[in-house]
């Protein structure tokens, strides 16, 4: 069953070439409608009560809005707050809200909704997947309907970015509890219907404050999990765009076809070969460095990702301010790896288990890495796992030697400072940098501190840093306005139109 999509795609490829069936192109294209393909169906549509990226990929900026907003490049731009001021000590944020905003059910929007939404997210019964975003908030005050003042108990350099996330969507007290099935937000699209297992349909919100937005009347999100079926849906014209295309191996076919445009952008996903730093032999930095020397990143990218993906040398996205290129720190050098292993007391290598979650990058990457490590005497037993046991055993229980996973939260290098995290890594130097970072607001200083943080974990070779996960998608020629990069999980269609 697991190898089925690959086999199917291979057969499809052969059959497609043999029969030379040309795509007919979509029948009469409806220029006010777009159909977007997604790999997974969202479990529900309430971004304040779940971590599934699919929720954000339907709702972010389309249905729901937050105080600030993240744009395609990952910059913070105005959202429901058209401007804001931050006090000199970084503890008080004064948000000035937009005039004329209404929820889809006709109820008005004002600062009371902001207070409600933020208090709900940080409150006792909250099931917000990113409750930590709101941890620094001490109080939310509403001096007037168009002003919300948020006071923090400590400075938080990422506060404005976090307030632009979908987890911080400003939901209304009247509708918040029903958002899972009938989402009511303030965005330019309204929820229309959900055909379970097949599609979610959004329609234009005629009362949106800016009459020029959106440009489309209808957006359909269709859920197609099988890569071969995704390719069929795109080629037959059922789907206009597949921003995260599962059939990476078929992108070359589509790229050669002038009916389609292939877009490869970046995501916030640092893909790492994670090591259990608390367990022998990975508690020895020489062993961890040896593994870094033994792994050839480009071969992993070529083999597991068909060449899409940017190598990384630390846990930081290359497109972010403060990025330091550390990919040259441990060049591919099996001889050096062997020397280091011998120094650490493993002249004949050792045996270990690598537990792999379901994504293709992990399963394929794991096989390539196992072959590379075998060259220096490290013998891996591959153990594929489903997500649920992976989370329970590897992530929560720290019961693992090695694993491969992509960490998709933006700017999440601070996870190396969590004492109970599954890497089991502890560094006072790193903790000091993180501490200063949390109190620093000035951008240049923050970038410098991020640089220090990247160097420390790279020198300690906490994990073997592999590549930045690409966002590889395909769309019909003539469609514009979709995000090329993915700073947050989203399919923001507010600017999408047909040329």
């Amino acid at each position, binding site marked *: 069953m697991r190898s089925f999509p690959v086999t199917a795609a291979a057969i499809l490829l052969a059959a497609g070439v043999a029969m030379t*069936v*040309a795509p007919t192109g979509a029948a009469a294209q409806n220029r006010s409608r777009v159909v977007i393909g997604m790999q997974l169906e969202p*479990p529900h549509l309430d971004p304040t009560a779940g971590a599934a990226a699919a929720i954000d990929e339907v709702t972010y900026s389309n249905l729901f809005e937050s105080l600030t907003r993240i744009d395609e490049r990952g910059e913070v731009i105005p959202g429901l707050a058209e401007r804001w001021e931050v006090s000199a000590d970084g503890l008080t944020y004064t948000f000035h809200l937009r005039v004329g905003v209404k929820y889809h059910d006709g109820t008005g929007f004002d600062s009371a909704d902001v207070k409600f939404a933020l208090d709900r997210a940080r409150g006792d019964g909250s099931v917000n*997947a990113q409750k930590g975003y709101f941890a620094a908030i001490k109080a939310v005050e509403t001096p007037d309907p168009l002003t919300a003042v948020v006071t923090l108990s400590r400075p938080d350099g990422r506060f404005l970015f976090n307030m632009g996330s979908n987890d911080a969507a400003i939901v209304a007290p009247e509708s918040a509890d029903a958002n899972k099935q009938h989402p009511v937000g303030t965005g330019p699209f309204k929820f229309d219907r959900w055909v379970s*297992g*097949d599609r979610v349909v959004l329609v234009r919100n005629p009362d949106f404050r800016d009459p020029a937005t959106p440009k489309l009347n209808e957006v359909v999100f269709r859920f197609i999990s099988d890569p071969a*079926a995704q390719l069929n849906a795109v080629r037959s014209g*059922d789907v206009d765009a597949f921003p995260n295309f599962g059939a990476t191996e078929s992108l070359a076919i589509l790229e050669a076809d002038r009916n389609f445009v292939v877009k490869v952008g970046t995501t916030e996903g640092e893909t790492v070969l994670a090591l259990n730093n608390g367990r022998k032999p990975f508690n020895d930095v020489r062993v961890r460095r040896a593994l870094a020397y033994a792994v050839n990143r480009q071969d992993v990218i070529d083999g597991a990702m068909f060449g899409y993906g940017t190598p990384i040398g630390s846990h930081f996205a290359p497109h972010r301010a403060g990025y330091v290129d550390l990919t040259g720190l441990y060049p591919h050098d099996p001889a050096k790896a062997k020397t280091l292993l011998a120094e650490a007391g493993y002249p004949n290598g050792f045996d270990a288990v690598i537990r792999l979650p379901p994504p293709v990058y992990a399963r394929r990457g794991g096989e390539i890495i196992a072959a590379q490590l075998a060259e220096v005497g490290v013998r891996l037993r591959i153990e594929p796992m489903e997500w*649920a046991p992976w989370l329970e055993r590897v992530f929560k229980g720290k019961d693992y030697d090695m694993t491969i996973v992509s960490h998709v939260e933006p700017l999440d290098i601070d996870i190396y400072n969590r004492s109970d995290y599954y890497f089991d890594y502890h560094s006072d130097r790193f903790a000091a940098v993180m501490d200063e970072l949390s109190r620093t607001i000035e951008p240049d200083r923050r970038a410098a501190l991020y640089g220090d943080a990247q160097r420390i974990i790279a020198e300690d070779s906490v994990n073997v840093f592999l590549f930045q996960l690409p966002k590889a998608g395909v769309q019909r020629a003539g469609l514009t306005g979709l995000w090329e990069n993915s700073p947050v999980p989203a399919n923001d269609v507010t600017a999408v139109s047909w040329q």
Partner: protein
Amino acid sequence: MIGFLGRRLLTLGLTLWLTSLVVFVVLEVLPGDPALLMLGVDARPDTLAALRAQMGLDRPAPVRYLAWIGGLLTGDLGTSQTYGVPVADLIRDRLVVTVPLAGLAMLVSTAVALPLGMLAAAKRNRPADYGVMAFSQLGVAVPNFWFGILLVLWFSIGLGWFEAGGFPGWSAGIGPVLKSLTLPAFTLGLTEAAILARVTRSAVLDTLGEDYVRTARAKGLSRGAVMRRHVLRNALIPITTIVGLQFAFLLGGAIVVENVFFLPGLGRLLFQAISQRDLIVVKDAVMVLAAMVVAVNLTVDIFYAVIDPRPKTAS
């Protein structure tokens, strides 16, 4: 007949009760925390505890089993943990795809297989027989998902007659629904037909060798009349068994073809629910499938009794 039905219904109830025990215990020992899976790697312990309490996962297993069974008996299937909607609605939404699909597939299968099987038997060891057997061999050998992909290549991407997959929903009307089920039904139906044609052929051949067939021919009945009145009726027993098995299989086992055509059927719901650890949906969906399979078998048993009165009088 009453005793026969009573015994059958008792077995049916016992089967379902055992199924409920097995599925509950299996899900208890399956690793994976549904709350952690929903909230992801950045969730805080207090948030996880809040969600677990909301889902009722903090209660002991026997209490949860009794609550579940009690709900089932009173017709309350509970609420899905991931989707947040009543499980009954979720399953109904999927059944309206799966049952028509399985039905259409069996229609295609029997419409193709019965005439072909009878033809092959009647023309035994002649070109028509070899032709049917070759078709059937091919049908058994070709994986149905691959055949589905071929149909999509020809009819969706090449000719543009059908969408490559998906289900518009019954609200779109019967036309679009039938259109969306056509390719999947032929995919499933033709591959099932390959098996059914072989079974039909051998069942008919077996009956053709019986003494009463020779007697019927000897008393002057025409070939066609013997086929209709004596051979087909008796050959129907093994054929019905296979049709029943195939239909029961298609209700939950069409998942691979559902994936090719991205159809929201019951098999796919079950698959998703297992990977998302939506335990209540898994349990209910398994029970619904078990109930349907049992019901199909019961129908087949009753049908036996109708076409062949011997078993019930003998017992």
